[in-house]
C-alpha cells in the first residue's frame, strides 16, 4: 500500500520541505496572499498538466499543448477584439476547435501507428503557425466580460484571494481525479500505458480511448489558453513557448512514470505547486535570475527520474 503511493509521497515531502525552507527564510510565505498567488500564477500550467497526465499515463506524449495555448489566446483576441464576437461564444468555439484538433491527432496516432511524439510535434508547428496566420502582433483584450470574470474571487482571511482562474484549476484537478480513478475511461488509460497489446487482447477499446485522451489534452490546453488570456489580458503568437516541456516536467515530478501506466493526478498538482514554489522563492530572493527556476527544475526532474528507476528496480527484485 505504502509502496504503491511512494512516488506521490516523496513529491509531497519535497513540497513540504521546500515550503519549510521558504518559510524559514521569508516568514511571509505563511500569508494567504502568497498561497493564493501561487494558485493563480500556476493555474494555466495546472490545467494543461491534468491533460498531460492522462496522455503520459497512456504511454504517449503531447508536445502541442504550448502552441494550443498560444493559438487559443490569439484566436480569442482576434475574434473578440477585431470581429466583436461575444467572449463566451468565443470560448465555446475555441474549446470545440481544440477538441477536434486533439481528436484528429489521436486518430492519426492510432490509425497509422505513428509515435505520438511525431504527430504532436507536427501539431505543435501547425498550431503555432496558425497563430501567425491570424496575427503577428500582441493584441490586448479589453472586453468588459474579462474584467467581470477576473473580479470574481474567494477572499481568504489575511488578504489572500482565490481567484476565478485558481478555482477553475482546482475544479479541473477534481474532475481529473474522478475521471482517472473512478471511471472505465480512467482504467482504460492506465491499461493502455501498462501494455497496449494486452489491453487490446483484454477487450479495451484502444481506438476510442486513444482519440479521447488526445481530445481531452487539447481541450484542457484550450481551457488553459482561456485562463492564460484572463491572466495576461492579451493574445500573442509567441506566448507559452516551451510550456509543453514545463508541463511534462510537472507531471514527472508529480510521480507519473514517463513510460506510462503508473501515476496519479493529485501528484501532478503537487508537481505544479513545486514549480510554482521555486518560482516564488526566486522572486522573493530578488537577486537570483529567474533562469535559476529552470536549473532547479532540471535538477529535480533528474532526481525524480533516477528515483523512479530505482523504485521500479526494487519492486522487481522483491517479487
Amino acid at each position, binding site marked *: 500500500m505504502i509502496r504503491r503511493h511512494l512516488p506521490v509521497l516523496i513529491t509531497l515531502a519535497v513540497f513540504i520541505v521546500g515550503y519549510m525552507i521558504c518559510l524559514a527564510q521569508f516568514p511571509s510565505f505563511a500569508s494567504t496572499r502568497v498561497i493564493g498567488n501561487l494558485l493563480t500564477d500556476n493555474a494555466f500550467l495546472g490545467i494543461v498538466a491534468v491533460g498531460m497526465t492522462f496522455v503520459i499515463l497512456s504511454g504517449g506524449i503531447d508536445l502541442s499543448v504550448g502552441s494550443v495555448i498560444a493559438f487559443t489566446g490569439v484566436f480569442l483576441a482576434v475574434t473578440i477584439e477585431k470581429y466583436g464576437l461575444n467572449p463566451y461564444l468565443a470560448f465555446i468555439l475555441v474549446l470545440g476547435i481544440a477538441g477536434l484538433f486533439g481528436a484528429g491527432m489521436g486518430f492519426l496516432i492510432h490509425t497509422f501507428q505513428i509515435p505520438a511524439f511525431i504527430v504532436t510535434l507536427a501539431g505543435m508547428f501547425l498550431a503555432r503557425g496558425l497563430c501567425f496566420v491570424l496575427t503577428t502582433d500582441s493584441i490586448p483584450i479589453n472586453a468588459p466580460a474579462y474584467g467581470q470574470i477576473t473580479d470574481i474571487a474567494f477572499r481568504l482571511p489575511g488578504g489572500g484571494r482565490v481567484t476565478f482562474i485558481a478555482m477553475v484549476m482546482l475544479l479541473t484537478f477534481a474532475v481529473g481525479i474522478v475521471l482517472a480513478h*473512478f471511471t472505465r475511461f480512467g482504467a482504460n488509460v492506465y491499461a493502455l500505458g501498462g501494455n497496449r*497489446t494486452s489491453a487490446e487482447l483484454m477487450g479495451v477499446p484502444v481506438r476510442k480511448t486513444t482519440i479521447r485522451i488526445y481530445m481531452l489534452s487539447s481541450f484542457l490546453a484550450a481551457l488553459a489558453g482561456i485562463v492564460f488570456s484572463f491572466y495576461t489580458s492579451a493574445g500573442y503568437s509567441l506566448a507559452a513557448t516551451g510550456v509543453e516541456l514545463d508541463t511534462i516536467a510537472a507531471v514527472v515530478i508529480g510521480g507519473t512514470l514517463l513510460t506510462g501506466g503508473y501515476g496519479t493526478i493529485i501528484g501532478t498538482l503537487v508537481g505544479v505547486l513545486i514549480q510554482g514554489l521555486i518560482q516564488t522563492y526566486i522572486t522573493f530572493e530578488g537577486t537570483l535570475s529567474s533562469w535559476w527556476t529552470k536549473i532547479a527544475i532540471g535538477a529535480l526532474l533528474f532526481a525524480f527520474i533516477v528515483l523512479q528507476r530505482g523504485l521500479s528496480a526494487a519492486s522487481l527484485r522483491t*517479487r
Partner: protein
Amino acid sequence: MRRQASDRLLFCLKRDQRRVRKRMSASGSDASKASEDEMPVSTEQPQLLEIRGLTKGFPGVQALDHVDFTLHEGEIHGLLGENGAGKSTLIKVLTGVFKRDAGTIRLDGQDIEARDPADALSLGIGTVYQEVNLLPNLSVAENLFIGRQPHRFGLVRTGEMRRRSQELLAGYGLDIDVANPLSAYSVAVQQIVAIARAVDLSAKVLILDEPTASLDAQEVETLFRILRDLKSRGIGIVFVTHFLDQVYAVCDRITVLRNGRLVGSRPIAELPRIELVSMMLGRELAAEALHRNQRKAVTGEPLVAFKDYGKRRLLEPFDLAVRPGEVVGLAGLLGSGRTETAKLVFGIERADSGQAFVDGKPVRIATPRDAARLRFGFTPEDRKTEGIVAELSVRENIILALQAQRGWLRLIPRRRQEEIADRFIKLLDIRTPDAEKPIGLLSGGNQQKALLARWLATEPRFLILDEPTRGIDVGAHAEIIRLIERLCEDGLALLVISSELEEIASYSDRVVVLRDRRHVRELSGSDVSANTIMTTIAGH
C-alpha cells in the same frame, strides 16, 4: 535399414490415424443413438470443440496439414509436439490470430471463426499464455473486471468490484489483496488470475499455452488442482506442455502433432510413455541404424567440471564433466533443459547454486564474457537471431568473437582479418565466392560453419554446439558431423545438443539425458545408442 524403419513408421502413423477416425466416428454414432433414445448412456462426455481438416500454410512451409482435433466437455487434453510441430499455429488459428486456409472449427456444434483473440473469448475460447497477457500496473480486481466493471452513474463501484474479485478468487483458493497491482504477485498467482478471468468471461474452452514453464513444483500442483476443479465443472481444457510427467499427472487424453500433421490422439491411460515419446520424435524403437564402433572411453582430468550447478525455476542442479578430446551429448525433448544447460554453462543464465571448475580450479562464470575469457565457445540454437549478423560479411562474422576478446580498442589489422577468414574458409570448406559476401546470403550449412569458425578463431578449449545441424541440408549435415569428430581429435572438449538421436549417438562418447529440467541419466560406452536414449527420455 533406416529407410525400412521410416516406412514402417509411416505405416504405423496411417494406421493410427485410421484407428482414431474409426473410434471417433464410432463414438459419434453412439452419441446420436443415445440422444434418439433420450438416454444419456454414453460414458463419454459430449463433444465441445471439433476441428476437422484444419490447414494453414505460410510461404515455404505447411504449418498445419489437415489436422483433426476433438475436445470433450470436462476433459484435459494435452497437445504435444516438438519444435515446428504446429501446436502454436493450431492455437493461433483457433483464437483468431491467423486465418485458416481450409477446415472447420465447431464449438458446441456451431461453426465458428474468431476474428481476433477478444472475439474468440466472447465466443467462449479463453487462452492463457506462458507470458501472462494481463496488465501488471492495474490492480488484480481491475484486471479481472476491465471493460465490465460494475458502475453507477458512470462511476466504477470499486468496492463492489473488489468484493466480487475477492469472491471469484476465493473459488480458486486464492486469498490476496485484490487492490494491489498485479505485478506485486508471482507468475503463478498471475496465471491463476488470468484463468479466473477467462473462465469468468464464460469460457467453455480454456487453452493453456505452456503454463507451467516458469512455475516451481508446488505452484504446478496448485495449478493442477485448479485444472481438475475446472474439469469437474465441465470446462474443456487444452494443455500445451513439454513435461511428460505433467502430461501423465493431469491429462485425460493427448494429441500429438509433428511437422504440421496429426500423429495421433489417444487416451493417456492406454498410452505407454515410450510410445508417446516415439510419437513425438517420429521414431520407433528399432535396430540401430548407425553404429559407431570405436567409442573411446576418454580418461584423464576433466577440462571443465560443474558440481551441483543449477538455477531455480530453470534447471535442477546437475553434475557435468568434459575431458579434452571428448564429445558429450545432451539429449532430451524440447524444453527438457538442454538449451538451459548450455546457457548456464556459458554464463548466459547465472547459476544460483553449485560451482564450476576449469582444470580443477574453481572459476566464476557469471556472464558470457567470463566464459569467453576461460576460452569457452558457444554456437546458439537459433542461428538467425542469436548467431550470425546477416548484414555483415563472412570475414566480419568470423573475426567477431576474436575481436570482442581483444577489446574493441585494439582493432585486428585488416590484413590479419583477411588471413584468419581465408584460413577458416579453406579449413572448414565454407562455400562462398569471397570473404566479403554478406553472410545472410549463404546457405544454412555454410552459415553454421562460419559460426563455428568464429569460435575456432579464438582457439577455444571447450566448445558448446546447440543444434549444430538444424535446418541444413544432408550433405552439409555430414560435413558438420565430420568436423565435430575432427575437432575432438584435436583435443577440444565438446558439448553438443541435438534432437537427432541417431546423430547424437553416433558422435558422442557419453550422452546425458534430460527430462523435465533434470539431468536424469548419463549413458556411456555401449549404452550410448538411440534406443537407450529414447527409453531413458520416456522414463519408467
